[in-house]
C-alpha cells in the first residue's frame, strides 16, 4: 500500500495509546484488542490524533528527525500500511486541501 501526499490519515475511532507501568511499555487499546506498538508507531499515532495529510506528516517527521523527506516517506509508508491494515489508522484518499 502506498500513500499520496494528499491522502488524509487519522487514528481510528476508539483507539487509545497509553503507557502501561505494569508491563513497562506502550499499549494500544481498541475495541476487543490490545496491541503493543513500537516507538515509531507511537510517534506517528500521536501526530494522527487529528486528521493530517500524508505529505504533512512526512514533512513534520523529516523536520523533527532531521532526515530527508524521501527516506522518511519510505519508512513511514511501510509502517502506515500495517497500521491501516490493522484498522488502527483510517485513510481517506486524496482529500486533503
Amino acid at each position: 500500500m502506498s500513500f499520496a501526499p494528499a491522502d488524509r490519515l487519522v487514528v481510528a475511532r476508539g483507539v487509545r495509546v497509553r503507557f502501561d507501568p505494569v508491563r513497562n511499555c506502550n499499549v494500544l487499546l481498541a475495541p476487543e484488542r490490545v496491541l503493543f506498538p513500537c516507538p515509531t508507531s507511537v510517534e506517528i499515532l500521536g501526530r494522527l490524533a487529528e486528521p493530517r495529510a500524508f505529505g504533512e506528516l512526512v514533512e513534520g517527521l523529516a523536520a523533527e528527525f532531521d532526515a530527508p523527506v524521501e527516506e522518511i516517506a519510505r519508512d513511514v509508508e511501510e509502517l502506515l500500511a500495517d497500521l491501516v491494515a490493522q484498522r488502527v489508522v483510517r485513510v481517506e484518499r486524496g482529500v486533503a486541501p
Partner: protein
Amino acid sequence: MTAPAREPWREPPIGLLAELTHRCPLACPYCSNPLELTRRERELSTASWERVLEEAAELGVLQLHLSGGEPTLRGDLEAIVARARALELYSNLITAGVGVSERRLEALAAAGLDHVQLSVQDVDPAGCDRIGGFQGSLARKLAFARAVRRLGLPLTLNAVVHRHNLDRLERFVELALELGADRLEVAHVQYYGWALANRAALMPTRAQLDRSVEIVKAARARLGDRLLIDFVVPDYYATHPKPCASGWGRAVIVVGPDGRVLPCHAAHVIPGLVFPNVEEKPLRWIWQESPAFQRFRGLDWMREPCRSCARREIDFGGCRCQAMQLLGDPEATDPACTLSPEHARIMALAEAEAAAPPPAFRYRRLEPVPA
C-alpha cells in the same frame, strides 16, 4: 483433587469482565450467565466495584468489559465508568440497548466510556422479539445504535447466530453498515449454561454453518476496511477446540455480580473449585495464587492426547468447562477437538438435533424465590 503448591503466576491479565448484575430485560435462551442467577440483594456496592477496578489496574488489567445481565440497570454505571477512565482502563459497555435513554448514554460518554457493544438478536423485528422475549426490542435497539453514533462513540454490533436467524446473516451485515458500526461480531452460539439447555433449539446444520462462513468471507472481501467483521464458529463443527478465554487464567478475569472471581464465566460448572470473592481476598492473590486460577494453568494437568499434542500450547486442550459439561470430566480433551475419542459421538448428537424440528426455547429467567 488438589493442585500441588505452585509458583505465583506473574503474567498480568489483559481484560476484566465485570458482570455488574444478572438482572436483564431480555431472556435470550443462549445467555452466558449461569443457570443459577444472582439476585439484586447480593450485588456488590459501588464502593466495592471502584476498589475492584483499582486493584485490577494495579494488577495490569487494560480493558474493562462492563456486562451483565444488563449493566445499564445499575444506577451507578456512570460512577464505575468514570473510575475506569481515571485509572486509564479502556471501558467497553456490553448492552442490549432496550431501556437506555439518549440522556443516559450522554452521561456515560461524558464519564469517559470508550466503546459500545450492542446485541442484536435478529434483523427481523418479530424474530428479535421472539429470541429476546421482549416486545418491540428491535426498534429500541436501532434508536440506541443511532444515539451511540450521534455521540461519536465507536459501535460494535454483536450478532449471536443460530438456526433461527442464520438465514438472515447478510442483512446483519447491511444493518451494521446502515448504522455506521465500526465492527460486526458474528458469533455462533457457544453451548454453555442456558445455551446448552437450549442446544436442540439453537444448533445450526452444517449447511447453515458453511453458508455463514461464505457470507462472512464475501462481506470481508467486499467491504475491506469499511467494516471489521469478527467471526466465531460453533466449536462442535470445528477441527480444533477454541483456546477458551485464551487459556485458563491467562488473559481474562471475570468478576460476578456478587464479587465471585472466575477464570471464565462458565467456570462454576467445574465441581471442587472454590472461587474467591473480592470482598474477602485481594484480586492480586486471586489471580496469581488462588487454587481455582492455578488449577488448569500450564501443561501438568493434561492427559493424552493433549499432553503430547503439538497444539497443546495453542489451544490448551480446549475448554475445561465444555469437557466437564459434556463428559463430566474437566481434565478430558475438549470433545470439540477431533482428537477426542468422544468427538464423533458428540458431533452426531448435535447433527441429529440440528436436523430435527426445534423444540421450544427455555427462556433465561430469574426463577421466583421458593416459598
